[in-house]
């Protein structure tokens, strides 16, 4: 069974919800979790939870990086921070993957310092799944968007590598035999979006092993045209947050509508089952976290607001990715296009 290191001190609800999530995983799976953080605080939370000690070990780390801290400065000052210790445990082979809900910048920086990138990879990418409309029966309800924040700006070759990494991940984790890849752009025409995107389009079109469906516009992101959408980190992050924001606004509007008129309330009541279904589909806690692809080791970034269920799922997805050999699959795919 894979050993998953979990940063117990990272996240808005750390360490309580992180430790509870690991406790839940210890009861429902045989994954061995290595909690990294303040041993005393972790044990206090464990004591009040149902858990199986056979599947949990603790590595004490005296410091932690706060959610609002500047990543570079924090890592320079805190060498015993839980995220640093966690990443080093994975790098040394004492754990197979790392999960954290902590400061994203600090997580990526800690991994960049401790992990080696896969040979040939220029930039790593943070990949996130999101719910989308399906076009045919049996199509996965989730699509993969990368990069969503590990980079800011990219070159054409980086976008091509993101496509290869995303394809490998979707093939292994989502079990999509031949994922369709789209390039996020401001128009479907090949020449749109400037030099970098045009070049990326040209390369992806001629790349064997990639089922490239062309440019994807913002309006198509939530549709089922592509299983993997690639873009630079700045754009990906904006899109992801926009999807989350819209979901929250729609939920608020529905809540207000219920208070306004009796007829609306009745209407919302009739729609409640459908709304619950949509909310369930959009529930990020189900998907665990976003994998950071491109390193020889796997890092799973859970949402900062993650609670126990999200952490439990992040641990499960990380273990699945390790078992299915995602980094090895990516390495082989990158090697094939070189």
């Amino acid at each position: 069974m894979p050993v998953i290191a979990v940063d117990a001190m990272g996240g808005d609800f750390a360490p309580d919800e992180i430790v509870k999530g690991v406790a839940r995983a210890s009861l429902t799976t045989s994954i061995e979790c290595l909690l990294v953080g303040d041993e005393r605080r972790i044990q206090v939370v464990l004591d009040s939870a149902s858990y199986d000690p056979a599947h949990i070990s603790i590595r004490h780390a005296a410091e932690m990086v706060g959610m609002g801290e500047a990543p570079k400065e924090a890592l320079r000052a805190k060498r015993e921070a839980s995220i640093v210790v966690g990443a080093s445990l994975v790098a040394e082979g004492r754990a197979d993957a790392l999960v954290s809900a902590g400061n994203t910048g600090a997580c990526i920086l800690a991994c960049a310092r401790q992990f080696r990138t896969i040979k040939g990879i220029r930039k790593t990418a943070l990949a996130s799944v999101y719910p989308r409309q399906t076009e045919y029966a049996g199509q996965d309800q989730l699509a993969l968007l990368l990069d969503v924040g590990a980079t800011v700006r990219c070159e054409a070759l980086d976008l091509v590598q993101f496509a290869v990494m995303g394809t490998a991940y979707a093939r292994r984790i989502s079990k999509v035999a031949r994922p369709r890849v789209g390039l996020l752009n401001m128009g479907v025409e090949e020449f749109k979006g400037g030099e970098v995107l045009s070049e990326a389009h040209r390369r992806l079109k001629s790349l064997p092993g990639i089922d490239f469906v062309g440019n994807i516009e913002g309006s198509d992101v939530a549709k089922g045209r592509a299983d993997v959408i690639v873009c630079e980190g700045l754009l990906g992050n904006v899109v992801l947050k926009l999807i989350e924001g819209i979901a929250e606004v729609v939920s608020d509007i529905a809540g207000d509508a219920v208070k306004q008129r009796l007829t609306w309330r009745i209407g919302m009541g009739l729609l409640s089952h459908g709304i619950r279904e949509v909310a369930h589909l959009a529930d990020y806690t189900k998907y665990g976290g976003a994998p950071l692809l491109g390193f020889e080791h796997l890092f799973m970034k859970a949402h900062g607001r993650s609670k126990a269920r999200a952490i439990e799922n992040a641990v499960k997805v990380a273990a699945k990715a390790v078992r299915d050999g995602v980094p090895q699959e990516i390495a082989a795919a990158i090697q094939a296009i070189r």
Partner: protein
Amino acid sequence: MTEQANVPAREAERPAPWARVLSRRRPLMRPGLQTATVVYRWDLDKTYLKSDFESLRKMVRMTFERAADKVNEPGVVALIRALKQSARQEGRTALVYFISASPPQIGRAIREKLALDGVEADGIVFKDQLQHLMRGRFRYLREQVGFKLAELLKARLTAPEGAIEFLFGDDWESDPLIYSLYADVVAGRLDPQALREILVRLRIDPARLAEIDAHSHRLSAANAVCRIFINLERRTPPARFRSFGTRLVPTFNYFQTALVLHQESAIPVRAVVDVGRSLLERSEYTPYQLRNSLDDLERRGHLMPAAATALRGDLERATILPPSGRFVRWPPRLWQRLCGRRRPSGAASRPPVAGPADYARLIDGWLASRARSAGEEP
């Protein structure tokens, strides 16, 4: 997996290569344990047997189960055998008793099962459910506190003088409460009047109440109960048992129980090795999982750091725990020392100091939980 007694006793006693090293390490005997008779009182269902009585149907099926079909809790057989064997080797007397709220009709199957497992029981007590059925007193069918407390006190009256006791139960019913009441009554910390008030609040069978009253008056006070072990079969959070004091040790598996018993000088390291090996060979545990169990016990404060360190060394040599190579700890420790920051030593969350339990609060909690889950506790 079941723990059938298909390993001949002689084979179990054959010295292993590491045995010579371990035999040099004799446990530091707890004062009184060298000469005294030690009594081990075991609950049966969910403590010794992996019984399934969550529904009436399962309860009925359990009644007709054959001995060979009954399944043990992992490691329990190895532990009971070790308790007897180590006492024999050290010239002490160890008595093993079972107490069960199951009807005496299953007695034959239970005795056969114990014989199959190679467990020498010095006595078994069952609850006469038929008597309640005949009188239409259905409320008392599931009542355990009165029955078990009365039987424990009766047994104590006939126990050898100066005998010390270890009690074993589980987190499914009322064992933590019953055992704590028993320990405090025997120690003279709970006077008969206070006990009576508690039992009235618990609405136990009046006939049992009178019996308990009579027994408790006849007892001469002695701090006899060393430890109460609660097998966390339901994975109840350990913090819920904190109010019972340090005397009660919630354990997640019998390897943890064996570690505490070794610390209490009740068994040698070799017995801990036997329990660990039984879990490795028959219950799909790995050495890493056993190491995690040991670490957990130390963090919860039930295993002192010095004892834990010594045990780690011994158990690694006996290949029960993995070699510490994979999880070498010295570089970070060295770094912490150089920086003047040290890992918190010893127990991360020590349980509160031992003392008579606050029964008023305990009973409130117990009654509330019983209302929630129809008689299940805690």
